[in-house]
């Protein structure tokens, strides 16, 4: 009877129950059972709110409901949550669940697939993940969703040092490599992992020397538009997008696949060359970070090498930055607190959590817990 009473939160202080309930609701998306509520409240009373958050996150709804819908908007141009489970979403869920370095989302030779799910993983179909989702599979279970290597699944076309986490998944290719000039992959990587869209990244004061030939320098006969607007995005973006020069999407959106042409620049990088013939000509997958100076130096670039080849080193450049870590914390903050960091206290806390996140090996579960603790203080 005493055990039951304690489990029900009989020893919890006033306020602990409310805090535990809020924490569970926000982290897991569903109300806690009486027993879990009591256990969490007791932990909070005992001064270990972080443990209470960790307890809540053991609920499978944290993965199947919260994380799935947390990540889903990252995987499509419309930023819609109403999209099926895919390899991008599954991989992010797996990395969080297995408490791996979150930097692997941009750098890892990693992918998560359904262990026994049929049909199996395919480069030209999302049926595997849709079946996994339709079955109500418990994504918190490592026996259901397991880690594999992209380079093993794609052993005939992608090496381990060419895989770059979610950027080289099928879902990302479907949305961000299809058609266009691959600048979309860069834009959405910035939106999702630096929390900035292009209009927040404009810097017209950088060199124009990597802006490709396909960008008109005189839109409608007015070069001021290029100088004051267009170049602001392209100065930084085009040097980075060299990383994807060997990637394309072939086929239709639903049954197509990522194409990787090692050593051969995709035609999409060379189209409309006569628009501005003296523009930059891409001849390999070299990328360069032009944001070491100027307004975007605020992202806190850390990697010694600020240029490289291919998406993996590009992903490393992004993932090593302060901006990447800060973005992850900000996203979690908004997810759990139902508001962006809104004042100096919030932003200072975000910086503290970011530092802890980096120090502790980029475990995003820690961030969820820390944010939940912060946002339920005072209840």
């Amino acid at each position, binding site marked *: 009877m005493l055990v039951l009473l304690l489990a*029900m939160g009989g020893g919890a202080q006033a*306020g602990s*129950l409310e805090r535990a*309930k809020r924490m569970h*609701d*926000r982290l897991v*998306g*569903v*109300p806690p059972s*009486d027993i879990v509520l*009591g256990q969490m409240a007791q932990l909070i009373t005992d001064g270990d709110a972080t443990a209470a958050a960790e307890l809540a996150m053991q609920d499978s*709804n944290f993965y199947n*409901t*919260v994380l799935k*819908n947390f990540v889903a908007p990252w995987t499509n141009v419309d930023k819609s*949550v*109403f999209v099926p489970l895919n390899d991008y979403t599954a991989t992010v869920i797996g990395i969080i669940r297995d408490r791996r370095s979150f930097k692997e989302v941009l750098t890892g030779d990693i992918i998560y697939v359904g262990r026994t799910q049929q049909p199996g993983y395919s480069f030209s179909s999302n049926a595997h993940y849709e*079946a996994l989702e*339709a*079955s*109500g599979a418990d994504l918190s279970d490592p026996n259901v969703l397991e880690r594999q290597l992209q380079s093993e699944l794609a052993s005939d076309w992608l090496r381990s040092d060419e895989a770059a986490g979610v950027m080289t998944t099928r879902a990302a290719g479907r949305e961000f490599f299809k058609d266009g000039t691959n600048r979309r992959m860069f834009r959405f990587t910035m939106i999702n992992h630096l929390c900035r869209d292009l209009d927040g990244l404009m810097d017209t*004061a*950088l*060199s*124009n*020397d990597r802006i490709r030939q396909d960008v*008109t*320098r*005189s*839109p*409608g*006969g*007015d*070069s*001021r538009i290029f*100088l004051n607007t267009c*170049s602001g995005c392209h100065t930084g973006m085009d040097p980075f997008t060299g990383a994807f020069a060997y990637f394309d999407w072939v086929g239709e959106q639903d049954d197509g696949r990522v194409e990787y042409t090692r050593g051969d620049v995709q035609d999409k990088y060379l189209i*409309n060359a*006569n*628009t*501005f013939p*003296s523009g*930059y000509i891409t001849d390999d997958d070299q990328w360069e970070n032009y944001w*070491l*100076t100027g*307004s975007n*130096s*605020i992202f*806190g670039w850390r990697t010694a090498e600020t240029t490289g080849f291919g998406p993996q080193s590009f992903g490393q450049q992004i993932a090593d930055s*302060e901006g990447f870590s*800060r973005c992850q914390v900000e996203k979690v903050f908004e997810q759990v607190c*139902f*508001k962006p960091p*809104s*004042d*100096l206290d919030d*932003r*200072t806390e*975000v*910086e503290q959590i970011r530092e802890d996140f980096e120090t502790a090996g980029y475990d995003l579960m820690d961030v969820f817990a820390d944010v939940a603790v912060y946002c339920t203080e005072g209840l």
Partner: protein
Amino acid sequence: MKHSELNRGTTARRAHEVVAVFLFVSLVAGCGNYTGGGDDEEETTTLQAPTGLSQSEQVEAFETTVYPVVTQYCADGCHDTGARGGSFLFANSNITTAYQVITDAQKVDLNDPPQSRVVRRPVADFHECGSQCMQIGAEMLAEVEAWAASIEASTGSGGQLQVTAIASEEVAFADGVEQENDERYEGNLIAFYGFTEGSGDTALDTSGVSPAMNLEVDDAEWMGGHGLVMDESRLIADRESSIKLYDKIAKPGYGTGQYTVEMWINNANITQENARIVSYARSSGNRNLSLHQQEYQYAVRNRSMAADSGDDGRRELISYADDQDAREALQHVVVTYDSFFGRRIYVDSHFTGDVDDVGGARLWNWNPDAQLVVGSNRSGNNNFWRGQIRMLAIYKQALSDDQIQKNFRAGVGKRVVLSFDVGAWTGTDAELEFSVTEFDAHSYLFCQPTFVGSDLDGIRVKDIRIVLNPADGVTPPAEGQVFINVDQSLSGSQDQVSRQCSLIPKGTGPATDIFAVEFEELALFVDPVSTTPLEYTPSATALALPPEAGFRNFARINATMADLTGVDPFADRAVDPGNVDPVQSIFEQLQQQLPSSFDMRSIVSSHQVGLTKLAFEYCAELVDRPGLRQAVFGSEFEAGIPSFFESDVATAFGNATLADLMSERLTDRMMGTQQLDEQPLRSEVISDMDALRDDLATNCEAPCGVDETLSVAKGMCTAILSSAPIMVH
């Protein structure tokens, strides 16, 4: 950001002084004048500490080389204390002061030690040195060379001197040497407009083919770099001269039966429709040929004897929409016509691939009264094309692919070479040349920077920026600079450092604009650009806060309802993936009707309708399945024959104990047994549930049997499951 102390209005002159200071010889009484810059001594570019050595090492290098000599020969009240009127205290007893003076005033030339002022003054000027001039000069030279050697040893690259600006001579655009464009193919040319006039009401046909088919300019604005800006404008040739086109191209027995219209144009936008770029027409609906822009497409009409050409050649050849051939950019657009292919369109020298299904035919039905018109219909009151026209040429021949490519490569517009003298910094005859054009009405295009000089070997160049109208406080335009990342050593006598072009905004215009070029490094000189990254500081700005509480989104609603009812939405699929789970299927149908965000302010009635419907599905599953409902309501409701759920409404809800228990069990199941501050009082919720139950039971639908008993339970379940205490979190 570059250092800004330097008066950039005199950058070119100062650049010369940097070297000239070592060359100028003056005979000045007393302690002499060592400026080498005459009256402009105060403007001399400031030489600062050589880089490559630490500050103390730099001073030490001076202290162990030149300093002992100058203190020995120049510290007689002139250059030590200034007591005798000396201006430059490079022999001051304070080594730091001496060092600063000798570098700031450029008394040494580490590029060319014999030209150092401290050497030249005794050797060439015999300045205050009596019979020891040659000896002193030799000692000075040896020590300057030793100083240069120590710096070179420290950097491995000849050493560098830090200055506050490295700028070329200034050059006016108007002083540029005009370049001939690459040779064009001009065989069978019958009309040509380069639009070079720059002003006036006439654009001249300079083809030399009579009659000259000059164009009257109506409301178009001349561009600086050749061309006209068209905005509700018209260019038109008179009928008398326009007949040239008919005669040369279409006239039976004389015309070639083929033609080419070639132009450089820049469409103002890609939204204009039926915008007439060029026509040879009698009236708006009566044309021999025309080219117009239709948003992203180019369309060509041509009157011919072909059966399918349509009235007045109305049947158009239009470029494929998805190719988006027409762009708001400077384009080389060519239309050819011959009897074999019919019409063909080329954009930037590439055939668009659009095939003329009318084909070629004789042009004998052309109207000889037509006029050549640019930018609108013939009347000049409609179908305006907005954009820039930089060149127009008409041939009585369909140009070949090679000929079109040749003319594309030749480019368009006035091109000049601007040569910027940088010899003041290199100590040689080096110049930096750009090929410059007026790109459009707002910018210049500086292309292919190339160093030219008799000996460029080993000259370091880093970070080239073009300055517009240099003056006090004027810095290079931040935008458009392409050569910032140049970083190399030159070689040979001509070295192109980039194939690219930099876009530089126009200032006062080509007649008066002046340019200079700045460098971060040139030869031995360096003007470091700050590269300190910004540091993130959390902002104190407070944002308006959204509501603290949030509404569960669609997925959370579904998961919450599944959790609280105990209904597994995937139960049937787990048995067989082909099975249809009723609840999950309803959810999949409803999910986009449910809230997608947590923001309470976005909740509307349709959300409530959707989630109530979903709640009812869950509750129906719960109540219809004995195993599930027992877990929620308790075993009491399954006991007896008939049990509660097997009884009609009157019997079931006539049992007050179970009826009340139903309200309590549902409330506790959905809201939890703990009374939380932010939740409504449990007793009040139960009271409301009782009232609802009574209302549903009393007003049950006939026959109020077992099915209605289940319905009342489902209704009570739905009410609380879809209520705010459950949905708000």
